[in-house]
């Protein structure tokens, strides 16, 4: 354990400045600064911050004493980790076999068309992120998708578009209320 304390020293100042990194520090400590725990740490970091930006990756590499390229390599290898911030709403359409056979491709195409975007992107106004996933394990409800984490089964393109617009409308209404 002594080595990890030493390794952390040059970074102590930065941590003081940034409360987000303090949070991360806690989970690093939980894993005893073990290099094997890199993926676990990145999971927690992403959960806390929404995405993994350069600063976070840098910090993790310093604290676990791994080369930055190593940490970056792991973060980009796994689909789960996102280096870009996500939109206000996140729609993940399952493109697994069962969903595809039942017409998930059409749903993606219609959303892409309606919001002039491609799967994997966020709209320029940051309102919607559209992603395609590989089987979310709800195949009996195919075609299915998740919208802000909520599972919607047996979808049609119309129903999905309506659900997205409803979500956006609700948020807008709430914002106007608070004004």
């Amino acid at each position: 354990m002594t080595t990890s304390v030493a390794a952390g020293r040059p970074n102590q100042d930065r941590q003081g400045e940034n409360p987000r990194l303090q949070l991360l520090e806690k989970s690093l400590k939980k894993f005893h600064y073990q290099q094997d725990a890199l993926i676990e740490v990145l999971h927690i970091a992403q959960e806390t911050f929404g995405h993994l930006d350069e600063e976070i990756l840098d910090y993790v590499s310093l604290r676990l004493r791994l080369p930055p390229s190593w940490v970056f390599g792991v973060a980009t290898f796994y689909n789960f980790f996102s280096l870009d911030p996500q939109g206000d709403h996140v729609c993940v359409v399952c493109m697994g076999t069962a969903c595809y056979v039942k017409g998930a491709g059409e749903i993606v195409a219609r959303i892409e068309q309606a919001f002039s975007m491609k799967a994997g992107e966020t709209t320029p106004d940051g309102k919607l992120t559209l992603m395609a996933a590989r089987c979310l394990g709800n195949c009996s409800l195919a075609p299915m998708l998740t919208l802000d984490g909520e599972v919607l089964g047996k979808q049609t393109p119309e129903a999905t578009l309506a659900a997205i617009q409803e979500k956006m409308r609700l948020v807008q209404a709430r914002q106007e209320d608070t004004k």
Partner: protein
Amino acid sequence: MNPAELHSLAEQERQRQKEQALRLFLCYSTPCLSAGADKVKSALEALIAERRKSGEVDLELVATGCMGPCSRGPLLRILSPEGGERMFEKLTPETACDILRRHWADEPPPVEPLAVDLPFFSRQTRIVLDNSGWIDPEKIEQSIARGAYGALAYVLREMNPEEVCNTIKSSGLRGRGGGGYPTGVKWELVRKSPAERKFVVANGDEGDPGAYMDRTIMESDPHRVLEGMAIAGYATGAEQGYIYVRGEYPLAAARLSRAIKDAERKGLLGSRILESNFNFRIDLRVGAGAFVCGEETALMTSIMGRRGQPVPRPPYPAQSGLWGYPTLINNVETFANVAPILKNGAEWFSGFGTEKSKGTKVFALCGEVVNSGLIEVHMGIRLREIVFDIGGGLPDGGAFKAAQTGGPSGGCIPAAHLDTPVDYESLKELGSMMGSGGLIVMNQGSCMPDVAKFFMEFCQDESCGKCVPCRVGTVEMHEILTRITNGAAVLEDLEMLEDLCRLVQESSLCGLGMTAPNPVLNTLEYFRDEYLAHIRDRRCPAEVCRLDKVPLLKLPEHARELAIFLKEKC
């Protein structure tokens, strides 16, 4: 806890359950949850609480794992102490409460219950899913009441590791993760590897699209998996286990981690298990979304916190796995078979199934079928029985076209082979695979070249990029399949596609690349006319593809000859 205490805890819980006037089982696994099971649960709970206030009701609402017919969820099963059982489907909070109220009032229910002799249930053989749908996976007592950890207690007291390996060997159990390698042989290899440390790993990555068996097993009966791993640890001499769960399965991870804690607290995992000399710890690892991490060598690198890229075998994990120590890797469903085998004996288990494929297999039956959901059938059952009896056939009178098994490493089985027995060998003969157990039924609305393209796109995306044949080959094959499906292909392309398939099959490093061409070769064999219709007639028989591109280049005859000449000479 010692074995006697385990036994009395089981008795106690069984007695408690018997004393309930009514037991309600509400399916609380992911598909039913997303169909609204949580709302049904709170409504029922409110109703029960209200009734409790006004008088005594001794009834219990159990939030269980998957009951099977997931597309009919949310599902509620009512069990009276005399053994009367009724099951209701597609519930809303209102109907659920109504059913319960009328039950109290001795009135007939407002909706018809599911027929008890539904072939969906009666044609199944449930070994792995025995407890699924009957216990609350978050209450260890309920698992124990149904016999959990009994086999572990027996093994620790009565058997030595060699005997355990021999029992698994003679049961004929084969790996359920896809390849079908004999499990007992693998255990024996690890047992015999000399080392001061060994590991046991449960593969719960389940990357195959259209498959969710492992998810359901982990969510519905986590203790069964843990018990299997602990027995494996005893049999191979390992003291540490890892269970690797896919990142997309947060509920499975949560229930497993709860189960691990509960088992540790009761002395069923950890040190000196059941007051024996055996120590075994299990840690949970959550994946981060990479299909290739299901491959065993990649999975181990991922557990060690690195990029999940496969490494060449040998050495096999049994000799050198995690941190260089001998490691036993089995699929989650494989582990779930272990406890029943040791409890009932190898002979009992080998009584199910065919000569070379013993026991049962869990399938996720999906796609164009009336009853989609999770089923467990004995090996060797005809595909026709699965699709038409258990699955209830195709909805809206659709005609069966093919059943896709084995995910991206498998293939499509056409209608002509509906009477094939479902076992490892027969499926392989048809150019498909058992795989982990996704079974997707397709009707005439599916276009086979398009399906092949779909799988190739999957493999292209998921290729880890380490070796060239797979990284470049899948892209090239996808390119050709795209040309075929958008009308820009010429006949020569088909030839090139087949060549590429063989090349990638033979020269890739890991199973992903080696099997990536399977869906293409298999659909080419059974549905070649569809490929030809796209290329020659520029027509998609299933009316899926938009053939709006024109072939760019038609090789002139002399160029074609040159190509053949080059292929022969080089």
